[in-house]
Structures are given as C-alpha cells and as structure tokens.
C-alpha cells in the first residue's frame, strides 16, 4: 500500500540552476576578443582596464538580457500552451510579434526618437503593439464566460497575416536606411542594452513571474480541460484573464527589448515536458532556468560562430529550433 510520495525533481531544477549561473559567469568570457579573467577581477577591484570594460559594459548586459529573454519567452510558452491546451501555442501564434513589429516599424518610419523614462520610442511602440494585439485577440474570443480557445488561435493567426500585410506596406514605403533598420529589428537580437533598461523592466517581469508561479497548481488543472477545472473549484475565467495578462506583459516587454525571437517559447517547454512531465510547479521554474541558459548560450554562439560577424540570435534559434522540433514530432509519432 502507498509507497513513497513523489517530491519535486530536485536534480532537474538543480542542474537548471547550475546551467543558469554557469551561463552568467562563463559566457561573458567568450567572444571574438579573448578576455583575461585576472584583468576582469582587477577591474572589479577598481583598476579599470579594457578587458574589464568589455566584460562588464558589453558582454555581461548582453548575457543578462539573453537570460531574461529566454526565461521570459519560455515561461510565456509554457503558460500559453496550458491556457490554450494547444501544443503549438506561443505568444507569437497569437500575433504578438507581428503587433510588436508593426509598432516598432511605425516608430522607425515616423522617425520618432524621444526617450521616455529611459526607454526609446521604438521599444515603447513595440511594447504597445504587442500588448494591443494580444488584448484584441483576447477580446475577440472572449465569449459569455470562458474564452473559446479555437477562436482565439484563429483570430491570432488571421491577425498575424493582416498585420503582416501592414508591415509589408511600411517596408514598401520606407527609404533605404529605414528598411535597413526595420529588417534588423525583425530579425530579433540581443544588441546593446544598458543596465538601466534591464533594471527598469525587471519589476514588470518579476511581477509576471511571481504571479504565474502562484498559479502553477491551477494551471495544472486548467491544462487538462476547462470543465474538469471548473468542477475542481478553479475559477476558470479569472485564472485565464490573469494568466493572459501576465504572459502578455512578459512577452510585450521582451519583444520590445529584443524584437521577435522565435522558437524559444516552443522548444523549451516541449523539451522540459518531455523530460519531467507537465507539472507546472516544476515546468515554471524549469523554463526560467533552462530557457534563460539556452538563449544566452545560443546568443553567445551567434556572436562567436561567424566572428567577427555578429549574427542576430533570432536567426540561430529558428535554424536550430525548426529541425529540433520536427525531430521531436517525429519521435512522438513513433511512440
């Protein structure tokens, strides 16, 4: 009778934690310019030198942004797939990236370049665009009570095409420099951010992460079936609304800083479910740790593989993610 009770998979989370911290420490040392660790240490102690400047001013913020972005996108993917009970759902499926892109491209086209609270107009426009899109999709599919999942996905995909046309229109109307800027933004990348921007978005992301963590148990039940969740005492409508809000904040913020970086929100959640099962009490911290480490590593590869060429990481995630995902599907088919 009974048998021992299953606790959280500690080794899995521990390994994720190690990967995360290792990424933070090791990755800034890697790059086209080799860095001497002693020099970095000297820099910390106040003896400024070029190696220290590269480490702290250029690479560390970039790695931090990679960790933050990877964590955010993976978590958003986990939650969207649970909410919509659809394995292909990511914030991007619902048109978030198109909305963000339209915002960003509009800012480029209109040549807006104010600075509000340390954020560029481009970032704010991208954030607004993403958020507006997702709220529109949500509003469209919100029926009398709970949301209609299939309508939401259809609405998202349709809206993506529509926004895509607007984006092409903007491209067509843009001059050469603008086009250059636009294409670069659409590729998605972790280029220069300063610590201030990172610190400023942290509360927003922290709020979303904590909010979603609190909902892990509820998300477990809701990810099976709406009726089942209702009968277990879950306030389905409230949960969906809240989880949607948090994930939208999360994605909107990340997209604003980095542009659309695809596939992270798809690969990491599926990979983790494959490893440890669908329990969100494990998946959520797992997606933060592994997703963060994954994107930071991928970005380091992107800027070192073809050095001195600095590849946008969005290209690499898609190049790796596509085949990987197909392999995963193929495996599942054969099970």
């Amino acid at each position, binding site marked *: *009778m*009974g*048998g021992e*009770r*299953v*606790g959280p998979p500690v080794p899995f989370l521990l390994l994720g934690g190690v990967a995360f911290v290792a990424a933070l420490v090791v990755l800034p040392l890697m790059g086209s310019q080799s860095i001497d660790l002693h020099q970095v240490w000297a820099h910390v102690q106040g003896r400024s030198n070029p190696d220290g400047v590269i480490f702290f001013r250029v690479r560390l913020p970039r790695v931090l942004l990679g960790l933050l972005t990877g964590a955010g996108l993976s978590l958003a993917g986990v939650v969207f797939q*649970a909410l919509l*009970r*659809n*394995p292909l759902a990511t914030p991007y499926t619902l048109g978030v990236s198109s909305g963000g892109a339209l915002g960003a491209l509009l800012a480029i086209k209109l040549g807006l370049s104010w600075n509000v609270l340390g954020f560029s107009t481009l970032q704010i426009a991208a954030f607004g665009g993403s958020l507006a899109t997702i709220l529109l999709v949500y509003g469209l599919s919100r029926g009398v009570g709970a949301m209609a999942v299939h309508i939401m996905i259809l609405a998202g995909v349709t809206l993506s095409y529509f926004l895509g046309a607007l984006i092409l229109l903007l491209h067509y109307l843009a001059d050469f420099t603008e086009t250059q800027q636009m294409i670069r933004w659409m590729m998605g990348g972790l280029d220069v951010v300063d610590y201030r921007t990172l610190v400023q978005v942290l509360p927003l992301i922290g709020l979303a992460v904590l909010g979603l963590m*609190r*909902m*892990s*148990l*509820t998300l*477990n*039940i809701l*990810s*099976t*079936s709406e*009726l*089942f969740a*209702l*009968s*277990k*005492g*879950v*306030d389905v409508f409230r949960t969906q609304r809240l989880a949607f809000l948090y994930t939208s904040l999360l994605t909107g913020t990340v997209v604003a800083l980095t542009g659309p970086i695809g596939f992270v929100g798809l690969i990491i959640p599926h990979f983790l*479910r494959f490893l440890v*099962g*669908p*329990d969100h009490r494990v998946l959520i911290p797992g997606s933060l740790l592994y997703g963060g480490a994954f994107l930071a590593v991928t970005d380091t590869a992107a800027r070192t593989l073809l050095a001195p060429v600095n590849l946008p990481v969005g290209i690499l995630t898609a190049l790796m993610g596509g085949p990987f995902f197909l392999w995963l599907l193929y495996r599942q088919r054969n099970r």
Partner: protein
Amino acid sequence: MIELRNITFGYGNRPLFDQLSLKILDGEFVGIIGPNGAGKTTLLKLMGGMMRPAAGEVWIHGRLLNRYSRMELARLLAFVPQEFHSLYDYTVEEIVLMGRYAYRRAFEPPGERDWRVAEQAMIRTEVGSLRRRRLSHISGGEKQRVVLASALAQEPRVLLLDEPTGALDLKHQIHFYRILREEQRRSGQTIVTVTHDVNLAVRFCERILVLKEGRIVADGPTETVIQQSVLETVYEIPLTIFPHPEDGKPLVTFGRVGHGR
C-alpha cells in the same frame, strides 16, 4: 438536497427547459435517462453550477447556488464527465490529487490529509497500483476510475456523473457502478448519473428520471418508471420488457426492429 426551482434554459434561440422544477434528496441514487438532446447533460451541469440558468433558482443544501464560491462548491459537488482527455500527460496520482485543489493553498505541497484522502480514493477505485503511470499508459476503463478517484478525493456530498461508462465495455461498466454503489453505501453521498443504458440504470438506481425534449416525462422509483408504455413514448421505437431470468428485474431491449411499429 438539490432543488431546482422553475428553471428556464436554452441554447441560442432554442429553448430547452421551461419552468422545470426538481428535488433530489440526500443519499438518493438517481439515474437520468432519455434520448439524445433531451437535456440530460445540461440538467446535470445546471445542478453542478457549471452552467447558469436563464431564469429560476438552484438550491443546494438550503443555499442558493450563486452564493457558493467555486471552491466551496467543489468541496460539496464532484463531477465525472463522459470522457476525460488531456493533451498533457499527467500521472494517475497527479490527477487524483487535483481533486484536493479546493482544500489546498497555492504554494504549499499537498498536506497529510490530502495524501490520505487521495490514497483512499485510489484504493476504493482500484487504481492504487497505477499511481505512477501516465494517463496515456492506462486503458479507458482505468482512466474513468481515475477520474472517479479524483472526484472522490473532493470528499463530495454529491456526485454528478455524465454517462461515466458510455465508452466502456460491459465488464468495466458494471465494475464502475459497483464501486459507485459501494462508495454510496459507505459514505452516503447523493448520486445523480446520466446514462443511455436503461438496464444499467435499473440495476443500480433507486430512482429514475426520464427526460424528453427538456421535460420530465416520468420520475419515480425504478420499478414504476420502467414501463413499456413510458419508454416507448420516450424512445419512439417498439420495446420489449421482460424479467431477468435470475432475479426478475426488468430487462429492456428493442422490439421488432425492421417491422415498423
């Protein structure tokens, strides 16, 4: 007691229930039968607060259903759907522990009592040995018992079941209902089950409610309701009722099929 008072409900422009009233007493084992589209499932969902009537009131244990929070309701009522599908492959134990949701707090692991109740629910539904298996690795009959275990883990006073054995073979149908009956004898829950299988209802239910096009056509003790005249009007086909050779309980089967009426 569950009481429906003058319930009106419809889908879109199609009215289903018009001023329907109904009382279900504590500890009853009620079967709801009737043809497709009669409103059986809808009635069950209205009782369980999974749908709200357009007009009328649902009272549960002397309190208006709207006055209960979702959590309170889940500690009182449990629901077993016809089929349970989950895209995500949880383990048996995880599904059963979900039945403790209404008793738990957000950040805490399941408590001693949660484990104990879940444990008992698994033993009574005979799925204890499957606890570590994932849903994709158990049979349909086992899965329904897991869903029942999850419902029992809610420690409900009322169990609402929507064709719980509709997709099961004969053996698993009987097995499922036996567990249900034992559970009721032990804990005295009220059980309301929707079924297409009249004979199953005859075997296990004390009271049968016959529904057709949103109206209650017959309602009473099983022996009085299971009459050829009643059932033929409801199902609109010739039927034959004869005593079971072993215990004389009514057996219902179709009559001269192919010969018209």
